[in-house]
């Protein structure tokens, strides 16, 4: 139990910390898996793309198809790398910013809202990169990107941004009132 004192950090709810730690753990597992199963992942993606020639605009001519497949595989790999990086980064951001919110935001309603927006948005957003990668072989690069954008990046990223700016405003108000 931490005291309700401005000079001491107050712990965010355990569920928030658990979400952040799980996110970092997933990022680590993702990074390790990318390295360990690089060939298997590339083979799976290539096979799934070859099974859907129309989706990827493949015409059956090697000189035309190979650059298309290569570009899609680069994006597939980039999505996995971006998941790894964003999940690691957002885990740390969730811990630090919810710590600040729990300690410095006075109103209970505002505090809960900020913590919820940052946690849900921050933990959900990186999963969009995983979804993007997973959908590239099935839907094509652009379609997969649009799907991830609307299903994950816009709602979860938007929530995290709103939460972060609300927190910035709340801390600024505390600073002005001091």
């Amino acid at each position, binding site marked *: 139990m931490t005291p309700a004192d401005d*000079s001491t*950090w107050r712990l965010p709810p355990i569920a928030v910390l658990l979400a952040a730690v799980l996110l970092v753990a997933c990022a680590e597992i993702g990074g390790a898996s990318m390295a360990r199963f690089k060939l298997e992942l590339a083979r799976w993606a290539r096979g799934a793309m070859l099974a859907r020639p129309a989706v990827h605009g493949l015409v059956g001519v090697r000189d035309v198809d190979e650059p298309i497949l290569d570009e899609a595989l680069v994006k597939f790999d980039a999505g996995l790398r971006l998941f790894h*990086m964003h999940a690691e*980064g*957002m885990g*740390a*951001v969730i*811990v*630090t*910013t919810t710590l*600040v919110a729990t300690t*410095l935001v006075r109103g209970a309603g505002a505090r809960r809202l900020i913590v919820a927006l940052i946690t849900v948005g921050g933990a959900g957003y990186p999963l969009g990169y995983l979804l993007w990668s997973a959908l590239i072989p099935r839907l094509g690069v652009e379609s997969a990107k649009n799907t991830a954008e609307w299903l994950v*990046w816009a709602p979860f*990223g938007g929530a*995290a*941004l709103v939460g*972060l*700016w609300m*927190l*910035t405003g709340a*801390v*600024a108000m505390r*600073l002005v009132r001091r």
Partner: protein
Amino acid sequence: MVFVAVFVIALGATTGALMSLLRPQIERYAQARVIARPAIHGLAGSAEYDAEVVARTTFATEAGLSFLHTHAEGLAPLVLLAASLVATFVGPAPARACLQALFALGCLFPLAYLVYALAVLELGRDAGIELVERAILTPLGGAAILGFAALAIALALRRRGPA
């Protein structure tokens, strides 16, 4: 200190979102700024050569924004945690104030990349990067490095001192 860190994190997250949403507009703006200053960017009037110069400068601008995003998300939480260690473990008030000031300056380091992105467009790629590195990135990055080093020394001394 807390405000600076939270502000930098929010700005970094917003930059990432804007870079993703407005990539074509940012690219067009950067290209237009380079073309509007042919002498500064060393454009020669040869389409092939100029296209390469424009592409390199646009890439440097995008890299600056990308560095702002990644450094803000990575450095600001670290600085906030380090400043908490200072508040908890560094005893003498002047030393604590000095370390907090170093971390506050270090926390502004990612903002230098915003200046970097604009400077390469306004002053030319090499001149812009050199100026920002010398005048902003090195002092602010140096403050962060000094802060972390001093904190490490303070923690080591505390460990060796009486319990």
